[in-house]
């Protein structure tokens, strides 16, 4: 029995490793422009072999692959990995199998923070209109690796996300017995509250700001670029490291607060810092690719089904990343000549998944 389980574990593991290796190549060959897998292979090999003389004769497909598709694939991977990690850790530290950054209201808090930044401080925003463009914000056309506007969005999102976490924690009261239901309901309430505030802001914003916020809030990787990839990547990888460092403590929380305490875990501190870490991840991802829901719910549950009795954090992250890359491929290809926001696809899949979990929980 043990051997069979091990064989299954390693075969699924091998499959995932294989998928991780081939995914960038295949994913880069899908999209509006017709690019063959062989083109991708050619570009990649020339890139990896350091053959950089291609810059003069950079073909269109090569530029599309290097400047549009690769950063996009990476961003999708980072986003999927981060959201799955956040979901998995949230589910463990709150002992709530239905926890997810989206359901928990963290995403809507982050969205609200980001919308405040966009609608109040961008060039089409309320302040800019009041002061007639006195606030100079870098244009979208060329993006430097660093600018105030680039950081103000994540900071706004993080403040909003932390606010919503505090809200949920305060409303549900940590350590109660009926925590599962209370937290979920508090999350829903918080989500509505920040959703309403966001709508209020949008109502007073200019139509351009409203349109851009709407498209962005549905979630999309279309704006991915090398220059803006580092922030979410660094955030997610640092968070993964921290979570791995405290893996034993996080696991111990599963046994209940009092048990975790007797195992030498500082329960209140650990839970609060993990909640904040999850809101940091969510905020960075919301700031760079909008609201993408349910990934944090679907992936950890799938991992639990595949690898019952193990808590593989790295695998959760990798699987989440792969899932997101392919959802993004679907988003690019489903409609012939335009892109579908990924948030719509994950929400559609996720709500079905949510019902599935609810059914199987009793």
């Amino acid at each position, binding site marked *: *029995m*043990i051997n069979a*389980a091990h064989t299954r574990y390693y075969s699924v593991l091998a499959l995932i490793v294989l998928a991780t290796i081939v995914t960038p190549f295949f994913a880069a060959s899908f999209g509006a422009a017709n690019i063959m897998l062989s083109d991708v292979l050619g570009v990649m090999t020339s890139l990896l072999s350091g053959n950089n003389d291609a810059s003069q004769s950079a073909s269109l497909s090569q530029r599309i692959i290097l400047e549009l598709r690769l950063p996009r694939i990476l961003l999708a991977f980072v986003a999927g990995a981060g959201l799955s990690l956040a979901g998995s850790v949230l589910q463990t530290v709150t*002992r709530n*199998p239905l926890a997810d950054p989206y359901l928990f209201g963290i995403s809507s808090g982050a969205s609200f923070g980001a919308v405040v930044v966009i609608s109040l401080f961008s060039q089409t925003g309320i302040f800019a209109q009041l002061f007639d463009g006195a606030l100079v914000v870098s244009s979208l056309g060329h993006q430097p690796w660093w600018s105030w506007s680039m950081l103000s969005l994540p900071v706004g999102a993080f403040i909003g996300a932390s606010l919503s976490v505090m809200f949920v924690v305060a409303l549900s009261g940590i350590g109660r017995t009926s925590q599962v239901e209370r937290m979920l309901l508090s999350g829903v309430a918080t989500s509505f509250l920040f959703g309403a505030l966001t709508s209020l802001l949008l109502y007073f914003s200019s139509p351009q700001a409203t349109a851009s916020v709407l498209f962005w809030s549905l979630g999309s990787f279309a704006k991915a670029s090398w220059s803006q990839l580092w922030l979410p990547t660094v955030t997610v990888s640092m968070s993964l490291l921290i979570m*791995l*460092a*405290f893996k*034993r*403590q996080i*696991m*111990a929380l*599963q*046994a*209940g607060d*009092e*048990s975790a*305490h*007797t*195992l*030498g*875990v*500082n329960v209140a501190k650990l839970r609060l810092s993990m909640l904040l870490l999850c809101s940091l991840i969510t905020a960075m991802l919301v700031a760079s690719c909008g609201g993408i829901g349910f990934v944090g719910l679907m992936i950890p549950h799938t991992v*639990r089904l595949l690898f*019952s*009795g193990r808590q593989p954090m790295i695998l959760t992250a990798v699987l989440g990343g792969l899932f997101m890359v392919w959802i993004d491929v679907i988003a690019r290809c489903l409609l012939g000549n335009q892109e579908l926001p990924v948030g719509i696809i994950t929400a559609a899949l996720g709500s079905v998944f949510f019902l599935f979990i609810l059914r199987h929980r009793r």
Partner: protein
Amino acid sequence: MSESVLDVEHLFWQVDGKTILADIHFSLPKGQMLGLIGPNGAGKSSLLRCLYRYIEPSSGKITLFSKHISNYSAKALARTVAVVQQDTPHYFDLTTEQLVTMGLTPHKGIFDATTQHDRELVDSALTKVGLTQHAQQPYEHLSGGEKQRALIARAIVQQPQILILDEPTNHLDIRYQIQILELVASLGISVIASIHDLNLASAMCDKLLLLDQGKLIAKGNPTAVLTERQISDVFGVCCEVNQHPQHAKPLISYFYGYQTNNRVSQHND
């Protein structure tokens, strides 16, 4: 007199003006098994929670190995005191082995991996409680007695000097009640356990503490504590105390028929 590992002096705990624990004092000699007895609501669990610092007493002093309990870090405390709780919460998705491995938590720093030695420790703990066969099974699928034994295995892996058990024999059939307490006694570490069954407490414990309404009524060896008078005062039942044929400690036979004179009702909470 052997050295004591735990000393409690003048311990009080009040919540909202209500006194839950009043002036508790006792000490636990090394390697002994101390039984905590008393009716429901006597404050047994609260006292134990003070000892593993889950609640902070209003006043009083708890000393572990002649060091004040608040001077221990969370980890150091968990390396000294292991706890087996009364109600095991719902663990989702853990195998028995993983649950037992949790006992390593206070011994591990950041990024420390589980070593071969740790695995041997977990294996030997599982063997000691007789759960080797169930190591890979989900903890949730174990029976009540097996769950309790798994939690004891976790405590063994924690390598504590003191083991605290909060009603370890609850909901278990008599075979497991005896088995679990004998298992704990065989570990050779100092133990404090709250026990409902007075005969079991009498048979298994070196010393007993009798609590009632937060106050310490009696302490000492079973013969001194389990007298007909004290049992009738605290528990409100009449009994006869004899010598047990095997271990010569008190054996209590209860008398029945309280419904007519209604004496039992005041102790039903």
